[in-house]
């Protein structure tokens, strides 16, 4: 009895400490608007999707509770596994390439040289180009016989069949297009991160006799960790939900997790509930991916307190 009251008191004290002081309250007030915007808009749709995934709902109305049935059916669906496989390959390959090339580009243009303004702008152009158009344009370029890439690849014997009719080649094409398209995002972000590393740090290291490689691994990478986490994490989450690139470039042939959701929820008349189950699957697995990243890179923000 007494211990319980003490416990209560202690908790009250903790609560008071966290929300009682004006300084702390201000901190929460500053966080609140953004949280409210996100929760107010996204909370209902996501929760509703979770609800749909455990019912036999159709596009025209809520059904009755069926437990895990949709999930069982989804895991039995070969299209789902095909989508998962492609998504994982795509995500790993494209994010890794984007990171390596992006970091290289960021390092290269983080210095004084003639025309760097133009180079920086040029780097960003692929990313600024409307996605709806670039996917169509790439499809044209990959076309057999009439597309410049398809034609060239054929001529030099790189491929023997139409690129767009082979799912492996299509997946590779999607990865390359994604690298072309989103590497600038990575480069720009990492460049901004590099900018925040004070020059003196390098100066001091050089005085201490550190060579280029040592400086890169001992200074640049550790100091860039926060930026790398953000850049790689967001690119991974985006790539993991890839949809429009696959849809347009492969003309609906190449399955990803999100195209599976799209087909189920927005085209099919029958797979509506299963599509929602797949959405929840994406949500949960993306959450795990994020946790792994945060553990791996350490989210300094949270551990400080």
């Amino acid at each position, binding site marked *: 009895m007494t211990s319980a009251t003490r416990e209560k008191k202690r908790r009250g004290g903790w609560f008071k400490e966290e929300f009682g002081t004006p300084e702390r309250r201000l901190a929460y007030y500053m966080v609140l608007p953004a949280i409210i915007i996100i929760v107010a808009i996204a909370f209902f749709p996501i929760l*509703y999707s979770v609800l749909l995934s455990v019912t*036999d709902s159709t*596009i025209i*109305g809520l059904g009755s509770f069926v437990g895990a049935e949709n999930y069982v059916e989804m895991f039995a669906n070969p299209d789902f596994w095909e989508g998962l496989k492609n998504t994982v390959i795509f995500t790993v390959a494209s994010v890794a390439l984007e990171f390596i090339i992006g970091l290289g580009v960021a390092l290269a243009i983080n210095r004084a040289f003639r025309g760097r303004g133009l180079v920086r702008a040029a780097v960003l152009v692929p990313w600024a180009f409307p996605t709806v158009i670039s996917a169509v344009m790439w499809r044209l370029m990959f076309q057999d016989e*009439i597309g410049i890439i398809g034609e060239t690849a054929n001529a030099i014997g790189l491929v023997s069949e139409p690129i767009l*009719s082979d799912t492996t080649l299509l997946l590779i094409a999607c990865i390359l297009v994604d690298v072309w398209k989103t590497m600038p995002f990575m480069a720009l972000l990492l460049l901004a991160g590099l900018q925040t590393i004070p020059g003196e740090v390098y100066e001091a290291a050089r005085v201490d006799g550190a060579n280029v490689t040592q400086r890169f691994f001992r200074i640049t990478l550790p100091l860039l960790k926060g930026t790398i986490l953000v850049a790689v994490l967001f690119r991974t989450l985006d790539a993991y939900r890839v949809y429009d690139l696959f849809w347009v470039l492969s*003309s609906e*042939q190449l399955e990803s997790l999100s195209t599976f959701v799209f087909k189920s929820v*927005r*085209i099919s008349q029958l797979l509506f509930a299963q599509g929602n189950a797949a959405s929840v699957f994406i949500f949960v697995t993306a959450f795990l991916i994020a946790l792994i990243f945060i553990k791996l890179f350490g989210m300094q923000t949270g551990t400080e307190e």
Partner: protein
Amino acid sequence: MTERNEGSGVSTGRKLNRREFLKMGGAGLAGAALLGATGCGGGSGGSGDLIFSMGPDDAQGTMAALIKKFNEQSDFNVVHRVMPSDTGTYFDKLRTQLQAGSGGVDVIGGDVIWPAQLAANGWIVDMSDKFPESEQKKFLEGPLQSVTYDGKVWGVPWYTDAGMLYYRADLLEKSGYSEPPKTWDELKEMADKVKQDAGTKYGFVFQGDAYEGGVCNGLEYIWTHGGNAVDPNDPNKVLIDSPEAAAGLATEASMLSSGVAPEGVSVYTEEETDPAFFATPGDAVFARNWPYMYAYGGTKGYLKQDQVGVAPLPVDEGYPLASCLGGWDMLINSQSDMQEEAWEFIKFMTSPEQMKYRAVRATVLPTRSDLLTDPEIEKIPVVAQGRPAIENTHPRPVSPYYSDMSLEMNEQFNACLKGDISPEQAVKTLQADLERIIEAGQ
């Protein structure tokens, strides 16, 4: 509260459901309303205008002209809500609007493959009373079937499309042929000969990609070999696992394997077909495409019209003509509160006079059978040469689950064309897939 109305049915339960659905949406919004308060003005509609949902106008602007004409003589205004030009994107957008219970749209210009699904979801109005059998008889058989579902008529056929065979009249003549091929075997033979004589790059191009157009092409091969996907009189009966259907797909695959068609056709859509056939100097002897392509004739960079001929698609020896039905219907949103006005507008747009106007100006083919023999329309080359095709169209399976069927068919047809699976395998798989879809829907 919700178990009551599982499954299909255009019952009152559906409406109740949608209201609940909306309520939940509203409830989740307590916070968002805060943001929304700054939103300027509401959605469209409500102003007394009739909203007509349809893709972009044709190049000649005939749709806009007709709407203007209608508005001048009517006591309400019709506003064209421009939807995406791509049918798939259009359908997706429309479905989202209707799913949300939006009455923003009154009249829907819908692809011929939509009415069954829209009707089964209770989203469009049964027009059997307004559009009686005596009227229906004046329309072409294929388009009429596309709006017939569950024994009722859910729309009025607006304009039609049919798969056709385009051929190089000039090259055929040089090689000593006076007529286009009647059978698929003849087509292959002629393609090979002309290819040799004239040095043309390809024999035949068509749409083999895994998409809706690929389904049309595949079904045409099946129909012209005497097969079918489902029983036209009972869409729940799957007939695709038949020797005829397999023979059809075998012919399609042989186009590629024998080299009559380039390997690339397995990823061709209409977009790749028309330049391959029509752009000078003309890479192909034959092409399968819709009537729209004929309009390229004589424009800059394309072949001249007299170099090209149009004919119905070939068949397998002894079977009747068959083309895939394309085109658009006019439907009424069941949530619309302007039902009478909607019908007035549809009556106007589908009247012989307006159909003729669009046919003559923009080669938009009429769905009224007697218009095909109208002297002015008869002169249109596509109609003059391709009329048997227009008169012998088959609709794709009329089923609420057509979207699901289409996904399976385009995948199997494409795999078969590429030689990844045999025609027998393809039809067997499809038989099981389509039966599963129909069963799941019941």
